[in-house]
């Protein structure tokens, strides 16, 4: 099974991290990533850029068409600023790895299991599930 570790940080954590040399943060994160890679469990991982650079925006679907703004991020106090995807055998193994992440006070990891094909077994009416039924029939009638 696959899990996503979603890194969330508060303003306070981001301020605190500025007291630590960036090189040190890089080294700690690098060592953590290396552990995940060498254990053969890391499938993907990315960090997101800082809001201050102005590349981020929000799409709000409250209206039709949706409204795109450069922010604000509303009431969000915990910003999503990076993720990992790992392949593990159990929730406990995901917990073990997530707990080893070198984050400090003010930071959190939200850990979620990634949906796989079996999770959609109840959606037999879906167009793409039906598509599968069609080619199954074609296969039986060569």
């Amino acid at each position, binding site marked *: 099974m696959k899990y996503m570790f979603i890194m969330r940080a508060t303003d306070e954590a981001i301020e605190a991290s500025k007291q630590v040399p960036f090189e040190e943060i890089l080294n700690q994160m690098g060592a953590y990533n290396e552990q995940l890679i*060498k*254990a053969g469990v890391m499938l993907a991982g990315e960090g997101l850029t800082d809001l201050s650079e102005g590349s981020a925006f929000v799409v709000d679907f409250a209206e039709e068409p949706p409204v795109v703004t450069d922010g604000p991020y509303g009431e969000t106090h915990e910003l999503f600023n990076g993720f990992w995807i790992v*392949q593990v*055998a159990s929730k406990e*193994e995901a917990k073990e790895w997530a707990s080893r992440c070198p984050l400090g006070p003010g930071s959190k990891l939200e850990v979620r299991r990634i949906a796989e094909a079996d999770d959609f077994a109840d959606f037999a009416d879906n167009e793409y599930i039906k598509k599968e039924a069609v*080619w*199954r029939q074609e296969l039986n009638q060569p």
Partner: protein
Amino acid sequence: MSEEAAAAVRRRIDALWRIEGARIIAALARATRDVGFAEDLAQEALAEALAQWPESGTPGNPAAWLTAVAKRKAIDAWRRSERLEERYRAMARDLEDDDGVPWVPLEDDVLRLVFTACHPVLSREAQMALTLRVVGGLTTEEIARLFLVPVATVQQRIVRAKKTLAAARVPFEVPEPNEWGARLGAVLGVVYLMFTEGYAATSGDAWIRPDLANEALRIGRILAGLVPREPEAHGLVALMEFQASRFPARTRPDGSPVLLADQDRTRWDRAQIGRGRAALRRCDALGRGRGNYALQAAIAECHSIAPSVDGTDWQRIVLLYEALGRIAPSPVVELNRAVAVSMATGPAAALAIVDSLATGGALGGTHLLPSVRGELLVRLGRAGEARSEFITAAGLASNQRTRELLEERAAGISPAPGPSPG
């Protein structure tokens, strides 16, 4: 203690062991120079954890705790040893002397462990079971579930493997330079065999056992991390990534197989294909050429990036199969080359290759040759011969799903339904 608390500790230990097991056993094996004994010690330490942790809580550094307990057990065992060999007494003294110093495995220790678990004195089954146990950190129950065999069978394989290693006096060492290539090849072979057991189950009625394939892939990635300068380690990872990327499209909901040509390519795992390509690039970046696995990976890559069967670069696949056939000649490679030739050039040229294989008596007793021959005959319009090939193939298939697929193929060919085979 409540059963629930004990079960929670059990799950925690299983998870920890997957992460730390290889390093702990490797450290123990370095100190004792005996992988079998190290594994016994580790199991005893795990049993003690299972007994104590539900009451005492999990220690802050579980790996260090387990190693310390195992180390104490080693000293006790040697003290009890009736043989009282000086060698063991000396080891016990050494272990006591460096008390307080945590045992930290060197990275090479895990590599030594891999080479020991895949040592050529062991049977294939023993190599796979031992590798999953000591390198993968799996329990006997988990291994039994992966191979669909009774727990007792796995236990027996592991006990026997440990005895064999001891009897053959297999050292806890990486191979000498003159043996390195062959021994590394053996390790890669064990990992790939494990993967193919999961990818195209040779027996039983399940076509794919993704859990087993995923474990093989994990061990392959660990191995590539241990020997990053070995192109074939990356080649093997690439090959497994490409093949595993097709799992979602490879079986129908009822578990029966879908052949490559009929797979819905939108269901291939693109992220996994990306990881396969990255692994193949790591192999190529070493600049030492492509070996057996990397060539197979390159062939798999051609399929992975093609929009359809017709849009596949079959000429390139033929070239890759030719190269593969020269460095690792095998009838299966030749048969696959024939399939590629049939797509690149036409069925007649391919049939000539298949027929020369048949004349040589290669692949007799398997369904592979008659099923490919059947497909080529269909394309050449020789329906009667084709049907009889599929019936022959169905009779030879050892996997229930494959047999059904071939029977369907035979029945679908002529206007009259084919006779049902034995």
